[in-house]
């Protein structure tokens, strides 16, 4: 963890520290709710800018936020750099961020308080946390974009550069409802909204779940076409696109079994598309 921390050996061993403030909010997300405490008013406002909040406080998975010293962190040159968290068991480390994530609670140590940046710190902890908790609760977090065609949810999976945002953009341009273009949740065979977006703004997203109809592998080409993908290949796609948990050996068999369950109840397809193509009629009739 030397990329972000000056002294990795000083990573907190216990979930204790000095809170930034006295405020608490409850974030409503699949895998949650998440009860975040130790906040300042500005940090509360920042969370409200990004995540759906519960109006009244209540129970949830506890996340305590504590102060960290700027001297704990290495300066990072971010020009031309793709941000990638360091995750080692319960420990998560990133820019101005340390977190310890246990089965029943988590703690974040950060230097960040500003409204425009604090939600990013929280999201960097929530993403792997939601992945683990969703898997434990019968769902799945998938690296993919999603959109609705004829009230049927299509999940477009793939790594960075596969074309997820492009397909989401084509759907928006055609007036279709879209979910996140980066991470989406599958719960009870439906695509459930998440605010973990890539290029899209949260206000552009559909807010209601949609039944999962097809899991789609993306393939750039010179024409628009769709063809079936076998169940085993769909399982492979889902596992490869299940971030955070697909490298956790303790979760491997659960992930594989979940991917089989999902792939057996949805259709699988490969969508070949052009950057300026028109994939919507193809998906409408699939």
């Amino acid at each position, binding site marked *: 963890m030397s990329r972000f921390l000056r002294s990795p050996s000083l990573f907190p061993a216990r979930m204790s520290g000095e809170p930034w403030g006295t405020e608490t909010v409850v974030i409503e997300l699949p895998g949650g709710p998440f009860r975040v405490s130790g906040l300042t008013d500005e940090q509360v406002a920042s969370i409200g800018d990004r995540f759906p909040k519960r109006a009244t406080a209540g129970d949830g998975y506890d996340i305590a936020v504590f102060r960290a010293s700027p001297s704990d962190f290495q300066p990072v040159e971010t020009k031309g750099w793709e941000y990638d968290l360091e995750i080692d068991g319960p420990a998560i480390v990133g820019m101005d961020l340390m977190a310890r994530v246990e089965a029943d609670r988590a703690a974040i140590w950060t230097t960040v308080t500003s409204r425009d940046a604090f939600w990013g710190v929280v999201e960097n902890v929530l993403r792997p946390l939601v992945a683990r908790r969703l898997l434990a609760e019968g769902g799945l977090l998938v690296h993919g974009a999603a959109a609705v065609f004829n009230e049927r949810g299509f999940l477009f999976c793939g790594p960075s550069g596969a074309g997820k945002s492009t397909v989401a953009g084509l759907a928006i341009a055609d007036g279709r409802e879209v979910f996140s273009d980066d991470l989406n949740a599958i719960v009870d065979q439906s695509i459930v909204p998440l605010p973990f977006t890539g290029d899209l703004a949260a206000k552009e997203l559909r807010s209601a779940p949609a039944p999962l109809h097809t899991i789609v592998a993306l393939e750039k080409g010179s024409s628009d076409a769709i063809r079936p993908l*076998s*169940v*085993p*290949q769909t*399982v*492979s796609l889902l*596992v*490869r696109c299940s971030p955070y948990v*697909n*490298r*956790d*050996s303790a979760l*491997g*068999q659960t*992930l*594989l*079994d979940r*991917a*089989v369950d999902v*792939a057996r109840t949805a259709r699988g397809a490969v969508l070949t598309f052009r950057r300026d193509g028109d994939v919507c009629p193809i998906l409408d009739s699939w």
Partner: protein
Amino acid sequence: MTIDLQTRLALDPAARFRRVGDEGVVVQQSSAEVLVVNDTAARLIELSNGARTIGDCAGLIEADFGVEHDVIERDLLRFAQELVTAGVAKIA
């Protein structure tokens, strides 16, 4: 490394396997790589418990599939090499 009919294979401890219909899916968790394998390779993985040789597996699979022994042996040696190269199986 040489793989022959006396080689004993076992699934790598960091790999997970699941049969899906007539095929199998193997996940190597240290790299998040995933392989989809055909029926014969899936059966090889299921039979490879670190005690059976590839030759033993060939005998059992020949009975299951009704394919010529030489063909099964040749296919299993090729699959075994691919599984070991991919890091999802190890020589016991």
